[in-house]
């Protein structure tokens, strides 16, 4: 079923090689024509399959109904459903808040785990356990635990936040564990001789970390970091389970009210619009990094 590698992705051995031109389209003038033709063939086949399926008409009516898609995008509070487009704004805000907090928390965890001073041992132990636990527990369970657990504690300020705040807290808890490992890989990628050079000049441990190690480490991990953030953008949709009216929840309310699933397709398209630019930006950075490495010779 998988067959030989498609020509549009270039020779198998071209992976990791220096190439000008787009990796996606392959290289050479002929490659563009071939990849265009094969794309058209594949898309046409998929479209035919969809249109010829016995249930095609019903699916088109329930999922791709233009009128319902428009209605769910704008929303109508009097009819009992919210605008999916407006609800997406909550996803964006949750994403931005979580992203900043994750970047800070994950860095702190990574630095603690990389430290070798005996004084730091308790902190090192705590952060190791933390990373193990939150990488292992499904995000949806963390969201439930925070979103329903903290209010049940009746602990004043801690128990009276909105669903969105609990959602952000859960996202930060879960993603910081992952992102701290990305940071750690970045810190390890900077050669030990850079530490020696910095310390030999009389820079303190902290100054060496801040001015010499971290800038190089962060440069190395920007692509994987952005990859995690693409994932984070989508996962804000999970906060809907707490009742926060984000895009996915708004789509669900629409489908429950109007009995049409087109709202979910609208939500999906909106998430794509959100994530694709970030994905392309990541690719751009990776490509630029490879060019710089080649131009610079070593390192």
């Amino acid at each position, binding site marked *: 079923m998988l067959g030989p590698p498609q020509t549009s992705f270039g020779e198998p051995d071209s992976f990791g090689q220096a190439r000008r031109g787009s990796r996606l389209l392959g290289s050479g003038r002929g490659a563009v024509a071939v990849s265009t033709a094969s794309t058209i063939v594949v898309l046409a086949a998929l479209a035919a399959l969809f249109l010829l399926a016995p249930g095609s008409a019903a699916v088109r009516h329930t999922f791709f109904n233009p009128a319902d898609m428009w209605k769910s995008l704008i929303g109508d509070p009097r009819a009992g459903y919210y605008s999916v487009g407006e609800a997406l704004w909550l996803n964006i805000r949750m994403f931005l808040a979580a992203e900043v907090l994750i970047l800070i928390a994950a860095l702190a965890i990574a630095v603690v785990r990389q430290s070798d001073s005996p004084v730091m041992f308790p902190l090192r132990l705590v952060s190791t356990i933390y990373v193990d636990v939150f990488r292992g527990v499904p995000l949806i369970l963390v969201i439930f635990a925070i979103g329903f657990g903290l209010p049940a504690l009746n602990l004043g300020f801690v128990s009276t936040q909105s669903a969105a705040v609990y959602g952000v807290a859960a996202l930060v808890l879960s993603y910081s564990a992952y992102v701290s490992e990305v940071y750690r890989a970045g810190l390890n990628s900077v050669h030990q*001789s*850079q530490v*020696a*050079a*910095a*310390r*030999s*000049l*009389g*820079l*303190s441990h902290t*100054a060496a970390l801040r*001015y*010499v190690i971290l*800038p*190089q480490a962060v*440069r190395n991990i920007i692509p994987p970091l952005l990859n995690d953030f693409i994932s984070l953008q989508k996962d804000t949709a999970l906060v809907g389970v707490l009742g926060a009216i984000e895009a996915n929840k708004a789509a669900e309310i629409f489908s429950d009210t109007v009995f049409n699933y087109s709202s979910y397709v609208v939500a999906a398209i909106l998430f794509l619009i959100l994530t694709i630019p970030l994905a392309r930006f990541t690719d751009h950075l990776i490509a630029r990094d490879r060019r710089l490495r080649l131009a*610079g*010779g*070593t*390192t």
Partner: protein
Amino acid sequence: MTGELRADTGTPEPAGPDAVGIEGLRKSFGANLVLDGIDLSVASHEVICLIGASGSGKSTLLRCINLLEPIDAGRILLWGQDITRPGIDQNRVRRNVGIVFQAFNLFPHMTVLRNVTLAPVKALGASRRQAEQEARALLERFGLLDKQADYPDRLSGGQQQRVAIVRALAMQPRLMLLDEVTSALDPELVAEVLDVIRELASSGMTMLIATHEMSFARDIANRVCFLAGGRIVEQGPPAELFTSPRDERTQRFLRRITDAGRL
């Protein structure tokens, strides 16, 4: 700035104690004994070359003096002050001791000027303007002023190593440790780096130089130390050590160097 730093490492030159005093220094990595009782004293303004086969402990000795490697036994004194006792301010010691590595180890994400000014600004608290002024003066002295805005990967190996030397000098060290600084260079780039070291020697800098460049050692060193098996087997003025070595191991080492056409 310098006066204050000099004050905390001991009595003023030149009447003071030796620049470096090493007593019974031992260091091993796991089961591998690298330094097996080193005793060495270096007077101020003296230039010492350490020679010996790879793995004889030259680099480790230099790294110990810069406190980059913790030692197992013995002590190291700089201008009479024991820098290996517990509780010593390592950063303060290192600010007086410049070290230059075989692989340059410039910071690749900073321009030449930033490489040179980072430590004076962040470790000594100098103002950026003053640090840059002094850095430019040093770069000019070593013919690198036109490279100040370049990143290290734009420079040749020889230029990078000269920048590394300037970076160490920017801290106004009283002692320079050079760890095989020409070993990673293409042959035609060696001379420009050696010229810099000669200039430093003639300006009176106290230096400990681990090197494989025998003819360079011969004409720059006040004293040459031959290391083998983690010990200083023989030491003396270069004229003496190179022409009439007494120890059998020194003779064998020098014969191999001569056979290779390096002396």
